[in-house]
């Protein structure tokens, strides 16, 4: 019908406009990475740089050991993401499908850690971690990331919507909790786990504060930390920083594309289907 077709087209136009609003800073980032300093702050905003400056990308990779930063960040992000998924899933399973005394209290305590403002535990945490000799180490960053209640909360909610009968049946059949966890729960929670993988990776990848506090040696720096070397006391090299940021975005986009398809299994769900 003609009417539905034009409704459809309108719909897609709306979506397109929305998408534009969402990505315009990224477009600006990309465009600035090809500019000269004098073109950055013009009014009105110059979207297509003219002339084009390819030097910023060269600077990013040559003036600073960007490749080392990249390697370090990958190591920390992958380690932290894998670690977080495993221990969050285990804890979430305990909080949703297992019963033990103090379960709900412990869960509340975990949840409460998300409510404490970061700046107030920054120094106490450093005191403890430094006494253990973990400073200037990537392991401090990875372990710190594992102590995040968000993943546990997220997975617990999803685990709770898995029908109890499935698990009960397996228990009656004599399966161990470990088996139920790995062979029933985890596969069913693929969307939730994929979501956690993406969030966890993004958060570690973009994290600035923990690397700042815990890393001292330049050869251990992560990308976010490394980029700040293009800032001086009173000003910064905007164009180069944007080029570096664009380069830094690529792995996130890759992880997103890899895992995103597990979040939605390709079937169209919603009441909008005619």
């Amino acid at each position, binding site marked *: 019908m003609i009417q539905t077709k034009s409704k459809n087209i309108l719909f897609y136009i709306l979506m397109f406009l929305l998408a534009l609003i969402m990505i315009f800073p990224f477009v600006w980032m990309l465009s600035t990475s090809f500019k*000269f300093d004098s073109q950055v702050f013009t009014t009105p905003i110059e979207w297509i740089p003219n002339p084009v400056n390819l030097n910023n990308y060269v600077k990013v990779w040559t003036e600073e050991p960007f490749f080392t930063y990249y390697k370090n960040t990958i190591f920390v992000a992958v380690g932290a993401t894998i670690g977080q998924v495993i221990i969050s899933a285990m804890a979430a399973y305990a909080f949703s499908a297992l019963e033990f005394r103090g379960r709900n209290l412990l869960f509340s305590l975990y949840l409460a850690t998300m409510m404490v403002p970061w700046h107030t535990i920054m120094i106490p945490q450093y005191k403890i971690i*430094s006494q253990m000799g973990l400073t200037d180490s990537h392991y401090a960053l990875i372990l710190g990331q594992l102590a995040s209640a968000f993943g546990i909360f997220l997975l617990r909610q999803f685990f709770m919507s898995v029908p109890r009968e499935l698990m009960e049946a397996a228990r009656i059949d004599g399966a161990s909790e470990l088996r139920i966890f790995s062979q029933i729960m985890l596969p069913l929670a693929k969307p939730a786990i994929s979501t956690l993988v993406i969030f966890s990776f993004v958060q570690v990848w973009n994290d600035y504060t923990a690397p700042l506090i815990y890393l001292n040696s330049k050869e251990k720096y992560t990308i976010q930390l490394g980029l700040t070397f293009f800032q001086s006391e009173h000003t*910064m090299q905007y164009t180069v920083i944007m080029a570096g940021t664009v380069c830094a975005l690529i792995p996130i986009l890759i992880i997103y594309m890899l895992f995103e398809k597990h979040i939605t299994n390709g079937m169209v769900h919603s009441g909008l289907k005619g």
Partner: protein
Amino acid sequence: MMKKIVTVVLLVCITFGTLAGCTKNGSVNSGSTDESGKSDSGSGKVTINYYAWSEGNYLQDIVDAYNKQSTVAEIKMTQVNSSDYDDKLITMLSGKNDIDVFNLRSGAMVSELAASGKLADISPYIQANGLDVSVYGTGFTETQTDNKFYSLPYRASAYGLFYNKKIFDEKKMDYPNNLTWDEYTKLAMELTTGEGTDKFYGSYIPDWNTCIYEALQKGSNLADDDLTPLQIWMERLNQFYNIDNSHLSYTDMVSAGTDPINFFVTGNCAMYPGGEWTISDVLAMLKNDPKLEETFELGIAMVPQADGAAEPVTVGGVSTFVVLNVTSEKQEAAYDFMQFLAGKEAAKIVAGYGAIPAYIDDDVTKIFEETIGVDGASNMLDLNKIPEALFIPKYTAITNMYKEELELYLIGEQSIEDTIKNFEERRVELSK
């Protein structure tokens, strides 16, 4: 099968944690937990950990120069992004750390940390090495607490009036020279033209600049009981920003996030009063984008003076210090580096980058003038200087308060009387 895999992964995780504790213990503290005096580079030299912020490349050159000529120590420098340096430093000092020597950016911070027992008293080392600290001027010798020295200065600051020669050439006007603040105010207004997006400003004073020029030149400061000089300066700022509109207004600066150096060099204003760091930032920007030299040429004049000033005086003096961590186990060797950093060799390197060292003599001045290559550069070094901040622990907090109240006044939320009153009240609160 699944079970085995999961169990193995679990074990790996737990081992992760424990191994992390064991292995890192060895490699992290190799710098400072060695018995003092013992070497780890096999040449009798001790490794000293030096923390600084991302100042300029002169620091790396100084470290390299020192390492080459020293038989006592090998410096390992860690530089942190300038705006995060303070936070990281405070955090590290609160726990176990490997810092031996580090930089501080104000005298107030030196006295605060000294009062908190974090700094080593270096007076014995100064005496033992026969260092004559009077070479740094009275601004530094007055900073002793209980006759003890806790820092050595290695950089000084000086405020000047920078301007774009090409703008004055275009308008066929004389370059600014020996202005009073009143004359400067008039000149800024004269130079301002246009409206809206085409507006060209006479001058520019950044919102983060808390230097109370005129008040300091009259001998006052933020801790003064008599707040009249401060009030006069604040009202003058209001004139610049809101009445004459000769300077980009406070609200505009804050809302548009303008970068001052970028603003000045790309030709949006004719003048720019600021600190000596402006020179190296401007030169760096010109180097990056040489096309800008078609419309911009740096001029340096003396900073405007207060009315009736007997002798011209600028704001500045020793501004950046190096200090010794009280927990360092290699104090003698660390001091050797401190003295080098505050000495003639390092001063020549600093001057070679267009920054002002704390140690100044004729050779250093010559190098400075040659590097800048702009007339009037010696203005920054020769003049009498008044320090911008007092060497007392609470001065940073007082400056923060001043900035908060000033902002409310400049955006029109508070009258000048209320601003002064609030500032005074909060100052009293602080000293309780």
